[in-house]
């Protein structure tokens, strides 16, 4: 299964990839946590290859390790065995090279900073000059449609706006990769639809590689070029589904038979992967 998944993610004609090497290569990755009740296997033998510029969604029930996988790529968790290569580097080196921007489940904006200064935070840490910081913050605010809100404090913004600010913060230093961990999970359906469209446009404009963890099948199918279906206990890749909708897709495609076919395949995969839970 894992080998098949790996093969399926290879570029079909070999020449379509934007760069020679894959953005992310994961080989035989396992990760277990030590808890009071003994070790818990969060990930078991995960093998994946993600091309540059792809939008890959990770979907699965709670406990399938999708967040852990994302955190391992970000060097926030240390694998027990196997290897990860991010832009050909180890996760630790990739992190040191500021290869990725991470968007968490909660916006995690610092309440004592204005929106603009929150977006400038990574730039301050990475030593950008003042003029450069201001230019990038203005660009970032525009990118997520928050121009005019830079001087506001996080508590003055709605949840959706806060999460947009956190996306602008993750992109402010122009990383190749955008890692997103259920960024819209806490938002209502209407805001989520809107942000999904904005994210898609943002991905089209910036050409970033996006890894996106979600619980929602329509969200995954709507956004992705590939959907990684994961199953729990231990967390592993059950299926990888390709989604060949045009990059400038609109929300309406969710009513097309093609969309529903892919969504059903994802749903089927989730159910199968779950079957021995009873």
């Amino acid at each position, binding site marked *: 299964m894992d080998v098949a998944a790996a093969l399926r993610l290879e570029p079909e004609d070999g020449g379509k990839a934007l760069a020679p090497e894959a953005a992310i290569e994961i080989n035989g990755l396992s990760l277990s946590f030590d808890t009071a009740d003994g070790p818990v296997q969060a990930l078991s033998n995960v093998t994946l290859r993600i091309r540059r510029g792809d939008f890959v969604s990770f979907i699965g029930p709670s406990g399938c390790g999708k967040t852990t996988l994302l955190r391992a790529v*970000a*060097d*926030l968790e240390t694998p027990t065995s196997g290897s990860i290569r991010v832009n050909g580097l180890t996760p630790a080196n990739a*992190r*040191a090279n*500021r290869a*990725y*921007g*991470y968007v*968490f*489940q*909660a916006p*995690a904006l*610092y*309440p*004592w900073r*204005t929106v603009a200064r929150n977006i400038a*935070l*990574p730039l*301050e*840490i*990475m030593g950008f000059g003042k003029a450069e910081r201001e230019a990038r913050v203005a660009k970032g605010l525009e990118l997520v449609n928050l121009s005019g809100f830079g001087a506001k*404090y996080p*508590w003055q913004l709605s949840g959706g706006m806060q999460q947009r600010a956190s996306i602008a913060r993750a992109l402010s230093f122009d990383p190749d990769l955008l890692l997103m961990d259920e960024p819209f999970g806490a938002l209502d359906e209407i805001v989520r639809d809107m942000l999904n469209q904005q994210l898609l446009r943002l991905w089209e404009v910036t050409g970033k590689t996006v890894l996106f963890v979600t619980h929602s099948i329509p969200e995954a199918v709507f956004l992705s070029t590939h959907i990684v279906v994961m199953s729990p206990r231990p967390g592993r890749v059950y299926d990888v589904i390709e989604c060949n909708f045009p990059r400038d897709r609109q929300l309406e495609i969710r009513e097309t038979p093609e969309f529903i076919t892919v969504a059903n395949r994802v749903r089927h995969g989730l159910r199968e992967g779950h079957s021995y839970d009873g």
Partner: protein
Amino acid sequence: MKSALPITTVVLSILAIWYLAAALMNAPLQRDQFANSGHADYSTRELVAASLNMERPKLPAPHQVASELYKLVFATPPTSKRSLVYHGAITLEETLIGFAVGSALGIGLAVLIVSMRWLDRSMMPWIVASQTVPIIALAPMIVVILNQFNVTGIAPKAAIAAYLCFFPVTVGMVKGFRSPDPLQLDLMRTYSATRAQTFLKLRSPASAPFFFASMKIGAAAALVGAVVAEVTKSEDGGLGARLLAGSYYGQTVQIWAALFAAAALSAALVGLIGVVGRIAQRRMAFAS
């Protein structure tokens, strides 16, 4: 305006209880005095009135303390050795020096403890132990030891004030520096921020509410330390010295006046820190 009623109620209740307690505690003494002076037929009203206006009562009545405070604060020249302004200034100076040294030490220790995990386990027990020793037992020893090194005057008392002050500041600031949630810390990690950057841009600003709470407790503790130190070395003056002098000569009204002066000083310090804290936090936009 709404809060005025409960506050007034509490103040009036305390005064009522105080008057009642003063009358009950002083009445037997006053009865003896009436008997000694051959004044046999007195009404209960007379007894109560006299009990509340004795020269050396067991418990002085509120109006006695108030008039003594007025006399010693406003009606006595501040250069007089009887003036509470004179003694209050001595106590305030010791408190402020002790507070400055103590809170600096407290914050420094908190920074070390948060930065180096092993220090938490190796240092915290000593810090806690330092506070379990009764300060009233320790204060004279510190004064004597420092005296050996020719450290006299205000310094030993400021040292004791600092000794009481640093502990709540350390505990509060350790908690404050550790207050950022895991997500906020992970964020810093994704930027490969150094420890110093994480401290400067996350831990320090996040600790602001804890900082002002710690400062309040630290200031009050420093004042207690200064007063206790003055009791052990009373010839230099200070509110603590007035407490001691009052108890030597059975001047209970004077003791209570000095006590209230110390409480007022403490309340003023804590209040001032509160105001500074509110302004600072509004600037940091914590207040919503």
